[in-house]
């Protein structure tokens, strides 16, 4: 796999995992607050 391939996979996976983590942290923190 080329370096650019690694860059794309890390960027894509990072973005999605980051988005999911951000969302679920917010979802569960709200649930606890209620």
């Amino acid at each position: 796999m080329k370096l650019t391939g690694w860059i794309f996979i890390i960027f894509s996976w990072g973005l999605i995992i980051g988005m999911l983590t951000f969302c679920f942290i917010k979802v569960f923190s709200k649930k606890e607050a209620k």
Partner: protein
Amino acid sequence: MSEVKKRDNWGSRLGIIMAVAGSAIGLGNFLRFPAKAAANGGGAFMIPYFISLFLLGIPLMWIEWTLGRYGGGFGHGTAPGIFHSLWQKNRFIKYFGVIGIFGPLVIFIYYLFIESWTLAYSFFALTGKYTALMDQNSLRSFLAGFQGLEKNQYFSGIGIAYAFFLATFLLNIWVIYYGIKGGIEKLCKWALPLLFIFGLVLMIRVMTLGSPDLSKPDWNILAGFGFLWNPDFSALKSAKVWLEAAGQIFFTLSVGIGVILTYASYLKKADDVVLSGLTAAATNEVAEVIFGASIIIPAAFVFFGSVDIKSIAQSGVFNLGFVTMPLVLNKLPLPALFGFFWFFLLFLAGITSSVSLAQPAVAFLEDEFNISRKRAASIFGIVSFILCQPGIFFLGRGVVNELDFWGGTFFLVVFATIETVLFIWVFGMDKAWDEIHKGADMAVPRAYKFIIKHITPVFLFIILGMWFIQEWLPIIMMKNIPGADKPFVLGTRLGLLFVLIILAILVKIAWRRKKLHGGRRV
């Protein structure tokens, strides 16, 4: 003021997130996405893909969640009623909403048969019925025999496939029969985590394949990932690649179908839609970009090499899922177990989508004709069972492709365009912005007010126009359909037109009944 019947509700916030994500995660996440990415620039495909996600997919997702919750406040769970609530002065707008029931119904009637194949193959994997087959031709023949397209040493007719169809059909109706909280939410709450576990197990298995054939060291897993992820930037010059990426976002998020409208209509007025919508979209993306891209294409590369993988990637979704992947798993230790994981993962992805596709029609009967859920589910069961039959018995005659084009492609983009126009220009952007933020647990970035108002509709109109000229016109004119199949395709079109007219008549009857009863529900 009309008397609004007590409607079903979601039991928890996680319940609706799981249900919407379950609706979005389907066979396409694991089969369509990796094939599209591999054929359209590899890693470079992710540039138009993410642009489409943020400028088209997520805004449409928020629009549908918001419209659904808004319509639910008026006791409407489907597009005819929701559109009418938005634009009460217009007598005709409710008829445009018919697409929001028609589209999911049409997808349901062919999707269910395909979903039943995944259940059947899960069973075949465990019983070792295909696990000894070690070449593409044998597995193709196995699939054709199972589908009833030919009689061979594996199957003497369509009987077994039909039995699995019946089991899948009854399972779906059973879930719908128990309603939103008692059926769909319960199903999605265990099916989605299980799907993610199976996806993770298969991904780890594929990642640890290494280089199974020592005589071909280049056929290794890293090269397999490279085949999918190494960017070909020249692909970005092609308008087709951008359209493919936008199309994939449409299909994967289940926007433009009418399902999210219905699901969101069961929210309470003060329930959040911003964070819940984004979470459901993010969950779907994990299944697609992480699991979907890490299983079938890299695994197939390891066993078939850089030359054959190109034709495999373009061989179509059925071939990838039911021929290539079982063949790969048959070459590994424990083929029965991993074969079961693969097909049961697809089955879970399928059933969480198919129950959502049934829901708009059931909600329409419940809300607009004021009949009980159990009766509505029974009526839906009888009607949809009859409608499923042409797709099963005329599979090889282009019927399923035709249903997929109208239900799963054409009307999807048309419907998304209608609801976006209504949301922005009829409801009004300022009012819409306030409506999105009612009960919101996070603020939508301000830039999205501009994106939703200007970029998303322009994006939609470009897609609509380009697809119409490049892809739809030849399909509508039946240019690539063999002569022998044309009567079946034409018959399917007439049948679909009949269903569309019946739904429009039902809308007319429902509204007339309400009018006769002085605005009160009957």
